[in-house]
């Protein structure tokens, strides 16, 4: 397994001690990613030798986007990009019909939840699947056993939990006749002290967990079964993130015992482990 770092800036030197794989969005095409335009991607590739760059194109595509998307995919395929993450089927369709030589990552956020769907995309030539954060470690292990596709798993960060095309925050403040210029807002359920982050941009509204996901125990179970583990620094203090990154790097190089690794990570970011060990339910009556 390699560490794939989803970062929110272009200064990569500080991370390079621990990883050389990075994940960004593409300008105007990405939900919940730090976006780069094509020139910035070229600059990064020129500036840093030997980095692997994955680019996420994960917004919902509309007809008016298609011509530009096609151009962007052709340009990206000419760069030394490691792979393109896609949500919308048009990306897959265009890459195939244009016969572009670029690896694809199946990244339908909350819907990459079983081995059959992974195999479906593998059989279409997709190289990687980025598993959903709402399935358990056991489910991930079973997927790993039963599919040939290479897997990516999100271990650290504030995972996205919903995306709307609507401007939910600014609409609400307009309704109140109040100003709100916060980039990041916090919502809370009444009577429960659990917070969520809500952010708005040109593509709409995203909600993220307020707690930092700590998938380190799951990482220990999965690291020999997957290709990339994703660590996301968005809304995490960079010094703290670098310490986490170092610990992961040390663990991958067997420089640290499991117990100490888990304890040190927990001291830094807490112990919120999402759905790695919690199954969701869906029938509330029999």
């Amino acid at each position: 397994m390699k560490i794939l770092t989803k970062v929110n800036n272009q200064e990569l030197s500080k991370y390079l001690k621990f990883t050389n794989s990075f994940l960004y969005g593409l300008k105007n095409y990405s939900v919940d990613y730090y976006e780069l335009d094509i020139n910035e991607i070229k600059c990064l590739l020129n500036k840093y030798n030997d980095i692997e760059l994955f680019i996420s194109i994960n917004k919902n595509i509309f007809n008016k986007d298609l011509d530009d998307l096609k151009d962007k995919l052709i340009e990206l395929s000419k760069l030394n990009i490691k792979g393109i993450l896609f949500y919308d089927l048009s990306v897959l369709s265009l890459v195939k019909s244009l016969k572009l030589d670029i690896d694809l990552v199946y990244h339908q956020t909350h819907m990459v939840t079983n081995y059959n769907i992974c195999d479906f995309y593998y059989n279409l030539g997709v190289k990687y699947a980025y598993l959903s954060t709402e399935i358990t470690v056991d489910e991930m292990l079973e997927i790993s056993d039963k599919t040939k596709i290479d897997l990516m798993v999100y271990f650290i960060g504030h995972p996205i939990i919903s995306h709307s095309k609507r401007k939910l925050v600014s609409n609400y403040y307009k309704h109140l006749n109040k100003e709100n210029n916060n980039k990041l807002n916090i919502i809370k359920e009444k009577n429960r002290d659990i917070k969520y982050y809500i952010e708005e941009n040109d593509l709409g509204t995203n909600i993220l967990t307020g707690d930092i996901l700590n998938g380190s125990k799951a990482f220990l179970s999965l690291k020999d079964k997957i290709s990339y583990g994703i660590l996301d620094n968005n809304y995490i203090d960079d010094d703290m993130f670098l310490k986490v990154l170092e610990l992961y790097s040390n663990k991958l190089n067997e420089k640290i015992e499991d117990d100490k690794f888990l304890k040190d990570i927990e001291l830094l970011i807490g112990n919120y482990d999402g759905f790695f060990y919690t199954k969701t339910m869906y029938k509330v009556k029999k």
Partner: protein
Amino acid sequence: MKRVELLSPAGDLERLKIACIYGADAIYIGGQDYSLRANANNFSIAEIKEGCEFAHKLGKKVYLTLNIVFHNEDIDGVYDYIKDVVDAGIDAFIVSDLFLVDYIKNNFKVEVHLSTQLSISNKESVKFLKTRKVDRVVLAREVGRDDIKEIIDETGMDIEVFIHGAMCTFVSGRCVLSNYFTNRDSNRGGCAQICRFSLDINDEENFSMAVKDLNMSKFIKDMISIGIRSFKIEGRMRSPFYLAVVLSSYRRIIDAVYSNTLTDDILDKEMKILSRVSNRENSSHFYMKEADLSDQYYSGRQEVSNQDYLGIVLDKNDNIYTIRQRNYFKLGDDVEIITPNMDIINIKINNLYNDKMEPIEVANQADSKLFIKLDIDIPKFSMIRVPYL
């Protein structure tokens, strides 16, 4: 040119029958597993068979939702289940996991419709789905009128869109708020509708993300003109009364479009009916513009219980009608009767009898059997409601 299909939800067999006789051309239902309304009553295999037989006799179709986002544990039983459902007579499956498309198309001669859960929003994706032998695509709710037209014109795919009912605030398939807030899996039928909760945001209370209901009645003529194949009504958990009222309204509008008799007066009347039965504010959302503040619903979950539905005609013996009562009414009340023939008849309640045929003055026991003598001829399954017009 094919006429547009009016597609109704049905949460159980009674609703399926009501939908069939109140104007639906096709009905979508959920089985007891694998559908996104895990907590509706849903259909056993025997009920699917009975529902298909009932619908087919009337020339209607039945589609089964198989549109959960599958986890590993859901896979094992699904293949046998699909065979059982095909044997029961289903006309199409509505799926969101693409591995099922290949499986069904390779093994059975039934249609496969792609669920809105996959939020398909452009022609290139639709072209791709055509190569996978998908028969119909239910487009994302966020797709506007011109994009829908372009998709139809350039792909020839059968396109289905929602025309009425509750809307998701978030892009379908891209919301798992329910998982995180309540541990109920939104993509496997457990959605707890967190978008309708009242939350705190920053220092403000009562932040809501809820959106108004969808009501496309005034665009039906235009939607037919651009070639949409199927008009879908949301709500497998809605009541039989709601289905009857909504379906018959849309049936009248659609039929008036085809007979070139749709007037502003007719449309205004139907829009009034639809607004009344929905009991929430409504909007056309993304059809003609980007959704904005006017499409949000900031009054929270305050819709009051609707007591418009007074009773349903179960049987008729000469001029004595057997009624199953739903809500309070009394002698002297003016009421409306809606019929499966799409008629709306205004009458005054002049007599009422209990189940022993003793005269009574008020009907105040929900679900009780009553009798009414009427001098008009109305069919079984007609419904009595408070006057809307």
